[in-house]
Structure formats: structure tokens, C-alpha cells
């Protein structure tokens, strides 16, 4: 697995840039990853990220888009605007949780 320095910290990421170790995550790391994705994080972004992290801790699975919009208080339309081009994947990457296993 490739190593990468994010926010002054040496972290392990996979080929797609997802953090491999959840403990490497911090708000600073999230901001840095978001910047790479061309995003400046606002309150609504954090609302989604905080939900995703707490849900992951509870279920050990990354939430789907439907789950995020049902439980985080952000509706689907807004979610797509907050994280353009695939909110499930992009928000997961910034929140430091694994890429959602959408489907089988």
C-alpha cells in the first residue's frame, strides 16, 4: 500500500486514496483530502462527515447514499451538490471510512 503525507502526517492509503487506518483520520487530514478533491468544507459537509464517522463506528460499514440522506438531515439533492460526482465515494474518502461496498 502506498504511503502518503497528509497534513504533515505519514498515512497509508489504497490505490484510490482511501485511508487504510481509521485512526489516521483527523479534521486536518479531512480538510486536506477535501482540498485535493477541490472542496472547501462547510458546516453541511461536516454534518455529513460526522454522521458517516459515527455510523461507521456503530455498524463497521460505510453508509450508502440512501442511509446518509435518511439519517444525517441532508437531503439527496443537497448531498450531490455538496460532494459533486459521487457523494457516496467522495464523502467516504474525506470522512476516512472505506469506500462503500455499494452493490453485489
Amino acid at each position, binding site marked *: 500500500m502506498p504511503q502518503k503525507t497528509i497534513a504533515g502526517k505519514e498515512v497509508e492509503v489504497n490505490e484510490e486514496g482511501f485511508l487504510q487506518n481509521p485512526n489516521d483520520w483527523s479534521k486536518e487530514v479531512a480538510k486536506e483530502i477535501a482540498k485535493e478533491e477541490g472542496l472547501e468544507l462547510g458546516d453541511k459537509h461536516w454534518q455529513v462527515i460526522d454522521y458517516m464517522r459515527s455510523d461507521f463506528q456503530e455498524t463497521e460499514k460505510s453508509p*450508502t447514499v440512501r442511509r446518509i440522506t*435518511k439519517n444525517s438531515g441532508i437531503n439527496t*439533492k443537497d448531498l450531490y451538490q455538496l460532494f459533486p*460526482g*459521487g457523494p457516496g465515494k467522495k464523502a467516504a474518502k474525506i470522512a476516512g471510512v472505506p469506500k462503500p461496498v455499494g*452493490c*453485489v
Partner: protein
Amino acid sequence: MKRIVILGGGTAGTMMASHLIKRLKDDWKIIIIEPKEDHYYQPGFLFMPFGVYKEKDIVKKNRSLFPKKVDWVKERVANIDHQNNSLLLKNNEKITYDILIIATGSHTVPQETEGLLGDLWQKSIFDFYTPEGAIKLHKALTEFTGGDIAVHITEMPIKCPVAPLEFAFLLDSYLAKKRKIRNKTKITFVTPLSGAFTKPVASKILGHLLEEKNIHVVADFNIEKVDNQKKCIVSYDGREVSFDLLVTVPTNMGAKLIEDSEIGDELNFVPTDKATLQAEVKENIFVLGDSTNLPTSKAGSVAHFEAEILIENILDYINDREFSHNFDGHANCFIESGYGKAFLIDFNYLQEPVTGRFPLPKLGPLSLLKKSRLNHLGKMSFKWIYWNMLLKAKKIPLVGATMKFEGKNIKGE
């Protein structure tokens, strides 16, 4: 007398009833709760729009399918009270149980998408996951004279995830051979996935086949709404795909009853232990078929393999033993590719579909992830196997509940 109640008499529930009647002693009463009279051979829905099957070819009465010694309660269930091991029926009767098996399946919910049930519904927009939809789509296709057809998946997971692809392949060959209007028709395959299928090797091979057949792919398309005026579907990121005929697979969800009983996830599927098939909510509830939240396909083959595992685990549970059987996510699906040929894929939680031979290594006779006439004949003979072996819980020779690695080219090609 102790009671085991099966909730739902579809593919999974009927198979479980057949297993239980063979294996449980007389001190158990087996009850199946199913409000409907008819049982459809659901893989047949795919062929109805092309006139291969009529409705009467794929339907039988539940009365003829449930084992005789099973008590059939023909009623809807309003609520599962898992704390008191009790079910409340719509007619206000109560049924208590010692063991509950949930087999309430999944179904399409077109209401979930804005505009889908608008003016064009069942005029220019059809599904083929219901008998009514498949019948009406057949009529629309016979009247179709050329234009844009979009084959569309709303949201994953869906029952039988390969069915929309099969539909696109069959549509291509139907329009070319039977109708001679393929050159006047543009077919577009619209999917929320990043490619043709969910797993990399199969996605690549099936993606090539779409290209070969001149079927355009619009990927990563998450539908926001149907615009009935402009006759197009619109994604959350603002892309539009216009259509003269839209064939869509609406959002699939588990039963409303699961939501009302507060034992489901956001799509009303029941959180289930992926190995033992025990419900997470309570130790005397088990789940199989499309109603689980397991990370494998929602498909009849999966329900069949699960049933072979679950019957052993239920006997373990009754006899106070540790669970002896683990489900591995085994799925096995034929994929019709048009022109009288089909693919076959065989996979589980960990092993994605790859090329190889099935069920015997080297000998086959079926080929994995490769189109052949024999695979197509396998698919067509499956209807007989379904009614006469699967639903009756008879073992299929050489095809076990656990996936075999032998005969598979594990590194892909």
C-alpha cells in the same frame, strides 16, 4: 406442540417449507403465512416482453406448491413483535412462534422516484419486474417502430442484478431478428454503477459485449427525476437521457412490514448474520432470500443455497447445538446474451465471477463467463428445475451450497 412460522411463501419461503417438512419431527407444527394465491417463476418475467413466455407459462397455484402437511395461513401480517415471539395479522389475529423464518423478499417501489408514476407510466415507461409491467411492455415493444430506448437501473441493490443487462442483450437481438428495426433504434444502458456489472472481471467482459452490440452505456447515473414533458430522465448531477421508450428497474425494497416492525435497514432489508443466517435482532429469528441485507446477489440461486445451509442451522438451534453451517454468499446465474446464447457466472462473498468450467472442472459441460449455446439451454431448462427440484428442496446433482474454487481461472483470464 412447538411452532415454526415461515413469513412469506415465495421462492425462499416455499423452499424452506419443503426442507422443514422433510427434516422436522412430528412435534413441530410448520406454518407458512402468504396472502397470495399465485407463485410466479420470476426469471420468466425477462422473456415475457419478447413474447417468449405468456403469463400462464410461468405461474402456478401456491396450493400445489406448499407441502401438504404445512399449515397455510392466507393473510397479511401487520407486525412482528419479536419481544413476545408473536405476529399480528391484518385481521387482528395473533400467531405465536418458537422460531420465525423471514422470507418476505423484495419488490419494486416506483413511488421512490419523482415523476416515474407520471403521465408516461405504462405508456412510454415500463418495468419488467412485475407480471403487469412485463405484459404491457410486450405490447409496447410489438408496436414500437424505432427511436430511442433507454434500459435503466434506478438504484442498487436490485433483485437479479444481471436482469437489466440481459434485457438489453435480448432487446438488441429481438429488434434485429424479429422486428428488423435495430438500425432505426438507439439502445442506451443507464446505470448508477461505474460499469456494466458490479464485479470487475465480469464488468469488463459484459462491457465489451455491450459495445459489440452497439449498446451505449451511461454510467454513474443517479436518477433525480423523470421529466414527463421532455421525455427524459435527469440525474442529480444534471445529465439527461431522453427516450421514446424507457424500460426501468425501480428502487427495490424489502417489505413494509419490516419497516413497521422496526427490524430493517434503510431499504427495509433485515440485518442478518452473513454466515449463520440468524437475524441480528433476536436469536430465534432467521432470514433468507431477498429479504436479507447480505452482501450477495438477490437471486433465486442464492435463496436455494441459503436454504440448504439454514435447514442445518435451524436443526442445530432446535437441538441446542452450535451452528454447524456457514453460508459463503454463493450465487449462480445464467446471463442471456441474445441470439440463443448465454453466459454463466458462479461466485460468492469473496470470489468474484471469473472464466472457467462448471459444474465439473475441465469437463463442464457449462462454460463460465463465456457465451455458449449450452448455457442458454441450461437457462431455459431451469424453469423445470425450479418447479420440480428447487421448490421441493431436492438437491441438484454436482451443485452444492458452497461455491467450488476448482474449475475457475482465479486470476481472471
